[in-house]
C-alpha cells in the first residue's frame, strides 16, 4: 500500500469517526539537542590581592536513551598578589622575584606579597555517559588544562547502579591525572636560599605530579520529598607537591626578626634569609560527604557536611546550608551559608629559627595553616517564558587564621602574623537550549 493511500484512507476514516473537519497539520520536533550552561564569575580579594575573572560554558548533547555527551570550556584570568610566606618586619624587605631577573620590595610592617602573580588558564573537559545493561550507567571523561607554568591531563571513569526501583543509587568513580609544573625561573631546590638576581644555581627544571582519586557514592530517596547522598573519597597525590613561589623567613631566636642578608657586590638580591618551602612528595586524603535535601512543598532546604583528613595532619570540616525559596511563579531566591575550618599541617611553620636544625619539611603557606572561613551568599534565579534560566549569585567570604603561640617569637608579637582575608564573589549564569 502506498503511503498516500494509507494516509488518506486513515485521514478520511478519522474524520468520519471524530465528526470534525481535518485539523491543522501537526508540528513536532525533537526537543533541544544541545543545552548550554554559561557563566561569568568575578572573584576579588580585599587589599588588591588575587582577582579572578572566569568565563565558563558547558554544553550537553542529548542523544536519547540516556546517552549524552558533555563538553566544557573555561577561561580564567588571575591578577594581583598573594602572600609569599615571609613574615612582616619593621623594615622594608627586598625579594628576588621568581624569574630571578628582578627584585621587588615590601614596605615595613606589611605582610610580603608576591605581586608578579598573574596568569591565564584554559580548561577543557569532555565526557560520555550511557546506560550499560539494564540498571547501570557508565560515564567516561577526559580533561585538559593549561596555564603558563602548569599543564594538567586527566581521565575519569564512573559506574552507577540503581537498586530498589531506582530509589537507591550506588556509584563508583576513578580518576587519574598527570600534571606538569614548569615554574617561572625553574623549580627551586626545597629549603634552598633565595639568591641574588641572575643566580639560578638552586633552580631545577620542570617537575610533575600524579593524582589518583577514588570515589564511592550512595544516594537514597527517603520518601517523596527527601534525598540523602553520602560520598566517600580517597585521593593519593605523589610527585612535586610544593608551591614553587612560597618561601619561609629564617629568624633570629631572640628578636624573631628575619636574619639580614647582603647581596653580593654589584648585584641586586634579597635583603633577608628566605628559604624555599619543602613539602612531602606524597599526600593521601580521605573525605566523607553527606548531604540531605528536603522539599517543604516548593521551598527546598539543603544541608551538607564534609570531613576531610590527610596524612599531612590537616583535618577540615565544611558545613553548608541553603534554602531555595520560590518568588512568584518563575523565580527563586536562595540564601546560602558555608562554614569551613581546618587544622594546620604538621610541617606548617610561620618562620624558621636560625638556631634550630632545619626540619625536613616546612611551609609557611597560609593555606596549610590553621584557619576558618565563613561564606555568606544569596542567589536569585529566574526562568523565562522560553524555558531558559538566568541567575545572579553574590557571596562574601571572610577567612581568619591563626599561628600557634609558641611559633611567635620576639618582635613578631607586635605584628600581624596571619593576615585575615576577605573576598567578594559575583556570578552571572544563563542556561539555554538550542
Amino acid at each position, binding site marked *: *500500500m*502506498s*503511503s*498516500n493511500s*494509507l*494516509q488518506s*484512507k*486513515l*485521514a478520511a*476514516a*478519522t474524520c*468520519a*469517526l*471524530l*465528526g*470534525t473537519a*481535518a*485539523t*491543522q*497539520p*501537526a*508540528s*513536532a*520536533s*525533537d*526537543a*533541544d539537542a544541545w543545552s548550554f550552561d554559561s557563566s561569568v564569575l568575578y572573584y576579588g580579594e580585599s587589599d588588591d590581592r588575587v582577582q579572578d575573572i572566569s568565563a565558563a560554558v558547558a554544553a550537553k548533547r*542529548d542523544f*536519547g*536513551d*540516556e546517552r549524552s555527551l558533555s563538553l566544557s570550556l573555561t577561561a580564567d584570568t588571575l591578577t594581583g598578589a598573594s602572600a609569599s610566606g615571609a613574615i612582616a618586619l619593621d623594615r622594608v624587605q627586598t625579594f628576588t622575584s621568581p624569574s630571578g631577573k628582578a627584585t621587588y620590595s615590601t614596605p615595613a610592617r606589611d605582610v610580603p606579597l608576591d605581586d608578579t602573580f598573574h596568569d591565564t588558564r584554559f580548561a577543557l573537559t569532555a565526557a560520555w555517559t550511557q546506560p550499560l545493561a*539494564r540498571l547501570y550507567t557508565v560515564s567516561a571523561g577526559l580533561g585538559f588544562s593549561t596555564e603558563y607554568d602548569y599543564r594538567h591531563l586527566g581521565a575519569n571513569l564512573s559506574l552507577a547502579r540503581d537498586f530498589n526501583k*531506582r530509589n537507591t543509587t550506588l556509584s563508583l568513580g576513578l580518576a587519574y591525572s598527570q600534571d606538569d609544573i614548569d615554574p617561572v625561573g625553574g623549580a627551586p631546590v626545597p629549603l634552598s636560599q633565595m639568591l641574588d638576581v641572575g643566580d639560578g644555581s638552586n633552580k631545577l627544571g620542570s617537575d610533575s605530579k600524579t593524582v589518583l582519586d577514588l570515589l564511592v557514592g550512595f544516594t537514597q530517596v527517603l520518601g517523596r520529598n527527601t534525598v540523602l547522598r553520602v560520598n566517600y573519597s580517597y585521593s593519593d597525590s605523589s610527585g612535586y607537591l610544593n608551591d614553587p613561589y612560597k618561601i619561609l623567613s629564617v629568624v633570629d631566636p631572640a628578636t624573631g626578626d628575619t636574619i639580614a642578608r647582603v647581596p653580593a657586590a654589584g648585584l641586586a638580591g634579597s635583603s633577608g634569609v628566605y628559604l624555599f618551602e619543602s613539602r612531602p612528595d606524597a599526600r593521601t586524603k580521605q573525605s566523607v560527604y553527606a548531604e540531605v535535601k528536603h522539599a517543604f512543598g516548593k521551598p527546598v532546604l539543603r544541608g551538607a557536611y564534609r570531613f576531610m583528613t590527610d596524612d599531612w595532619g590537616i583535618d577540615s570540616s565544611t558545613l553548608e546550608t541553603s534554602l531555595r525559596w520560590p518568588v512568584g*511563579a*518563575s523565580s527563586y531566591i536562595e540564601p546560602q551559608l558555608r562554614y569551613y575550618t581546618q587544622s594546620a599541617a604538621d610541617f606548617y611553620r610561620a618562620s624558621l629559627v636560625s638556631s634550630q636544625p632545619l626540619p625536613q619539611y616546612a611551609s609557611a603557606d597560609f593555606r596549610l595553616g590553621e584557619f576558618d572561613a565563613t561564606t555568606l551568599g544569596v542567589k536569585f534565579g529566574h*526562568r523565562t*517564558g*522560553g*524555558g531558559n534560566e538566568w541567575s545572579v549569585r553574590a557571596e562574601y567570604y571572610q577567612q581568619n587564621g591563626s599561628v600557634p603561640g609558641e611559633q611567635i617569637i620576639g618582635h613578631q608579637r607586635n605584628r600581624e602574623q596571619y593576615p585575615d582575608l576577605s573576598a567578594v564573589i559575583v556570578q552571572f549564569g544563563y542556561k539555554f537550549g538550542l
Partner: protein
Amino acid sequence: MSAIVLTRDPAHFTARFTAMASPCEVLIDTTDATLARRIAGAVGDCAWRIEKKFSRYRDDSVVQKINTTAGEAIEVDNETANLLDFAATLTTLSEGGFDITSGVLRRAWTFDGSDRVPTQADIDALLPSIGWQKVRWQRPILQLQRGMQIDFGGIGKEYAVDSACTRAEEIASDTSVLVNFGGDVAVRHPRRDGEPWRVGIEHAERTGLPARLVNLLRGAIATSGDARRFLLKDGRRYSHILDARTGWPVEGAPRSITVVADTCTQAGTITTLAMLQGANATVFLREAGVQFWVQ
C-alpha cells in the same frame, strides 16, 4: 471515578486524574483559574464518559451489552457505529492483523512478565471466535456470532484524547490545551507565547523515565510499547501485540514506536499498524511518510 487535581504552574494550569486505567494529564495555557477548572472538568467528564460507555469490564457498558447478545442482532447508537466503522477500516488496512474481535485471546495470553506461554491447542480453541469477516455489520445493526466478543482496546484511548480536545475547543476555541491520557497526547492550538509543549516519551524499558523529549506545537503523539506487558520464555520475548490472524505475538517488532500525526487517533492507528509489521515496522513507518521514533 477519581477526582481532578488542578495545580497552577508558572504559565499554565495542570489537571491530573485517572481514567481508563491510566494517569491522565491536562495542561491548560491560561492564567484564568475559572476557565482552567471548566476545561479540566469537561476533559475529565469526556474521559470518564467514554470509559464508562466502552469499557469491557463494566456490566452497564455498550460493549458489555454487545458481548452478551449471544448471537442476536443489536442496534447500536451513532457513536458506537462510528467506532465500529473505524475498526472495520483498520482491519482492512492491516489485512486482518488488527481485529476488535481478537480480545478473546486474553484467555490464553496474560502479559505479566512471566513465562506462561500458551500452547497452540489453547490458541486453536479460540481462533473460531475471532474474525471481523464473521460479523454481520450493517449500520446500525450489529450481529456477532455466538461466543464472539469485541473490545475497543487500541482505539478507545486515542479516540478519547481527540474527543476531549474537541470538548476543550468548544469551551475555549483558541486556548492551547494539551491532553495526555497515559502517554497518548494531542494539542489543537499553539500556546500564547508560541513556545511548544515539551512532551516526554517514555523509555521502552525503564518505565517512568523519558527516553526523549519532543517539542509539540500542535498535533498528536501516540506511543505503543511493551514496557510492562510481555512474556519471557527460554530467552525469547513475546510482545503483547497479537496478530489476530494467528493468535500469536508479532515477532521482531520494536519495543516501542512513537508516531506524530494530526490527530491522536491517526497517530495511535499508525503505531498499531507498524507494530503488526514486526521486524518491518521501521520500513513501514518510513514508507508511510510519518514522523516517528522507535526504541
